[in-house]
């Protein structure tokens, strides 16, 4: 029972709850949304135990939707998507709780959109039908567009439309690629079907058109990741979005890009993905992302912008890990995806809390506040260290695995990427110092309030995860391993012997 319905319930429940929030009284909106998202989280928790690591695709439900076009409603979860689903249900209640005082206007709309967004995000991670995937991929665009555009900062209109058009551009080309792909597979098999498993099972050799199809998928996902040079929407969107928007954007939405590579782009077109030039290009762009993201982060006066650019760098590690195609690197990539969601999410929460206190995002507006707000300073330190990748925090586990694994495939590139870890320390530590240490020279900062219990309730679960994954990542790795192994083997096998021999 749970096996069959849980994923559908995870998609449907937030939509129902959103309607409730919209129709209920405005002053209850946030409480209703929090309750709904906690229920969602509670629904998803048993996935952790009932998931069978070696079981492949599970919790499947498959019913016809638009039979005329071979479109089905097919959902399922495997080791690649399990943690992204859990990360989503975990971050959403925290984001809702973290918005309690930040969002003061049109609350019903905001919380309803957060819930709709949740549906869309879960839908993207569990869809096993390309039509369904595309619909979900687009549907979550609208809530985020509104969240940035209505509740964002001063420059929100520009940021919102830039975010929308970048993503829309990429995804429409992907739509076309999906259609062509389905058409080509139908020519071979006679079955017009958008089912993921059908397509991947009957892909065969596509010939030169595969390059163009890969390019379309690549564009859609690379914009979302975002990879250099398609990242320019990200700083704007992150900075202008309200706290919860930034957290979800960084924590979940960026992962959709890398998830798309793992699930669709690479397994569909392994020969293209492993073509030496494509490899060189993608690894090169990932490295540029790692180094460039770090260097640009270093000179940002705005704390949120700094975090935004650090995301570009972190996601570069994920891309490197995926393309290195070793068990460690792929597991590492999956770990970095989770860790980035937790650590960067926490950083954005902290940036939002600082903003609520001082109404400034500038690093220079603070200084020496460790004495005034010790709890906030402690947590900010822990989170920053985890983002840098200090051993015993989660950041270390993921990046180490990526570097270890990728070294076997790309020794030179990995050496450069390792330098990126140092760059991370070079931008986050000075920023940390300027915010919480240094002399307390601004009178406005002397009366700052420390964390309230509500804010602690937002941050402590994240800190707990940081330490848990940092100290004992085995439960995570064990659940990922078969899926990662399967991913590598299938890609290697269908890419042919030429590339697998490396």
């Amino acid at each position, binding site marked *: 029972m749970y096996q069959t319905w849980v994923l559908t319930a995870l998609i449907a429940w937030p939509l129902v709850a959103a309607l409730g929030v919209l129709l209920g009284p405005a002053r209850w909106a946030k409480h209703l949304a929090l309750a709904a998202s906690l229920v969602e989280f509670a629904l998803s928790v048993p996935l952790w135990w009932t998931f069978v690591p070696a079981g492949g695709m599970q919790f499947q439900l498959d019913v016809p939707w*638009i039979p005329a076009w071979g479109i089905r409603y097919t959902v399922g979860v495997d080791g690649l998507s399990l943690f992204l689903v859990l990360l989503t249900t975990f971050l959403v209640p925290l984001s809702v709780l973290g918005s309690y005082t930040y969002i003061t206007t049109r609350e019903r709309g905001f919380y309803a959109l957060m819930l709709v967004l949740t549906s869309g995000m879960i839908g993207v991670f569990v869809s096993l039908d390309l039509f369904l995937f595309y619909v979900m991929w687009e549907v979550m665009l*609208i809530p985020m567009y509104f969240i940035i555009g209505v509740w964002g900062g001063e420059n929100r209109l520009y940021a919102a439309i830039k975010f929308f058009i970048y993503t829309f551009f990429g995804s429409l080309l992907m739509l076309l690629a999906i259609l062509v792909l389905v058409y080509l597979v139908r020519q071979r098999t006679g079955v017009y079907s958008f089912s993921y498993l059908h397509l991947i099972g009957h892909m065969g050799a596509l010939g030169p058109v595969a390059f163009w199809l890969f390019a379309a998928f690549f564009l859609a996902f690379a914009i979302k990741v975002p990879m250099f040079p398609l990242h320019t929407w990200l700083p704007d969107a992150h900075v202008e979005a309200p706290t919860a928007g930034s957290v979800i954007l960084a924590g979940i939405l960026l992962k959709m890009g890398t998830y798309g590579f793992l699930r669709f782009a690479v397994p569909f077109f392994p020969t293209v993905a492993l073509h030496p030039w494509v490899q060189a290009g993608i690894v090169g762009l990932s490295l540029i992302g790692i180094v460039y993201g770090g260097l640009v982060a270093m000179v940002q006066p705005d704390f949120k912008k700094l975090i935004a650019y650090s995301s570009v760098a972190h996601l570069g590690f994920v891309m490197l890990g995926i393309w290195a195609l070793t068990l460690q690197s792929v597991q590492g990539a999956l770990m970095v995806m989770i860790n980035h969601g937790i650590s960067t999410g926490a950083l954005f929460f902290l940036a939002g809390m600082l903003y609520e206190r001082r109404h400034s995002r500038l690093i220079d507006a603070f200084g020496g506040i460790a004495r005034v707000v010790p709890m906030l300073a402690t947590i900010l330190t822990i989170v920053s260290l985890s983002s840098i990748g200090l051993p015993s925090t989660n950041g270390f586990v993921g990046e180490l695995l990526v570097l270890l694994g990728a070294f076997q495939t790309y020794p030179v590139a990995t050496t450069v990427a390792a330098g990126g870890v140092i760059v991370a320390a070079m931008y986050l530590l000075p920023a940390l110092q300027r915010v919480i240490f240094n002399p307390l020279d601004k009178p406005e900062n002397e009366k700052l309030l420390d964390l309230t219990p509500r804010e602690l309730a937002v941050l402590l679960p994240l800190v707990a995860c940081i330490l848990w994954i940092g100290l004992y990542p085995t439960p995570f790795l064990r659940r990922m391993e078969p899926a990662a192994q399967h991913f590598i083997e299938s890609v290697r096998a269908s890419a042919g012997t030429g590339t697998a021999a490396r």
Partner: protein
Amino acid sequence: MNLAALDLASSRDLMIAFAPELVLTAWTIVVLLTVAWRHRTARDLRVAGWLTLAGLASAAGAAWFLWWQRAAAPGIPAMIAVDDFRFVADWLFLGTAAVTVLVSFDYLERENLLAPEYYALLLFGTLGMMVMAGGADLMMIFLGLEVMSVSVYVLAGVNRHSVASAEAALKYFLLGAFGSGFLVYGIALVYGATGTTNLPSIGSQIALASLQDSVLLLAGLALVLVGFGFKVAAVPFHMWAPDVYDGAPTPVTAYMATGVKAAAFVALFRVLAEGFGAVAAWPQIVWWLAVATMVVGNLAALAQRTVKRMLAYSSVAHAGYLLVAVTTGSAAGSAALLFYLVAYTLMTLAAFALLAAKGRNGERDVLIDDLAGLASSRPWLAFALAVCMLSLLGFPATAGFIGKWYILVAATAAGQTVLAAVLVLTSVVSAGYYLPVIMAMYMKPEPFEQAHAPMRLGLLGRTAVIASVVGLLYFGVLPNRLLDLARASGAAVRKAPAPAAMSPVPLAPRAPTSN
């Protein structure tokens, strides 16, 4: 009486085949006589409106009866086609006219347009559309086109207090007559080449006498395409559209942008598929028309500040998407065309109805920024308009997306990948003008207190808008019914000339639930 084997040579069977048109004609005469007798007060106007609705409903019923009985006229090619493609198109036109009437009730009273002939003209226009969609003969199609066009020329200028309206009517008349001239001349040349104006006969003549490369025929075809290009507002024959749409009263604009365009597309598809299916030249011409229309329509719409002009250019852009469906010439293409026409009609009608509610004595000047803050004072109106914009943009979970998807499916299946790519890329551009409307409504503050208080949408207008928006969302998520209908009717357009002695396979009447 066997409706599945109508013999159109017998006048009785011909009357049956023409039943929807005849019913509508009768009602039109009733409306005409009524308004000739009573045309003084607003109440008379309402009576005429209700009579019009009754007429549209009975014509739809007649079309439904023929569809339900699987009426067909096998055998010798006749003046009129009796197939599902025609019936579904008829419903579309009748529905469009009904929504236009619903919106007009309030609009006419508010704008003080006591012109009872308005409804009679609307009925005549719809009649013309039905004849166009049913015509299996170029003469019939031309006849329908003229009946429709002349009615709409007058409708465009029905607001005699407005200079813009008069300008629109004159412009539309001059350019429309110009376009009709091309069409007639094209028909004459086609007749010269093939010796017939009947579409299936043209098809068989081309096949028999190998006329694919005949200069006379190609010149005629090109002129026919130019004539239709004017009617559907395809680039480069779109020049009249923005000014005319802009100047005409808003419900009439809605009617022109949906009904007239749909009729021209349905007729164009039938002419090309049934008559010129064997001529290789037209897909190439239409290919270029489609590309030019999509690119120019979308780019020009970006530059517009007023909502009405933006919607006018957007309707040009949508003509481009529809031309993509025409280019395929396949059964999937005709089904996609029908589906997209339904979705397009719903979203465009609702958008214009909402605009008509916002406008007040000169709605020409409603800027996109004038909608600022609509969401906070009139949340439901803003929501409805937002759904329309997203659907026009082709966003998932709306009928506009399914329609666009269908066109893309048909285009990729026909090997038109480049055309599909142009469609997709120009759709991205269209986000640049649809989103600002949403942005203004939701993300900008109200310019002054009560800025939107005068916005009125009467009970009937509200019904029409609610029905359209619900339809958009419903067909966006569960399109199956409409899809099956479009597929079945799209396949009904005959591709090759039918052999003369085809024995009809009798079919049982449909079960009442099988729509």
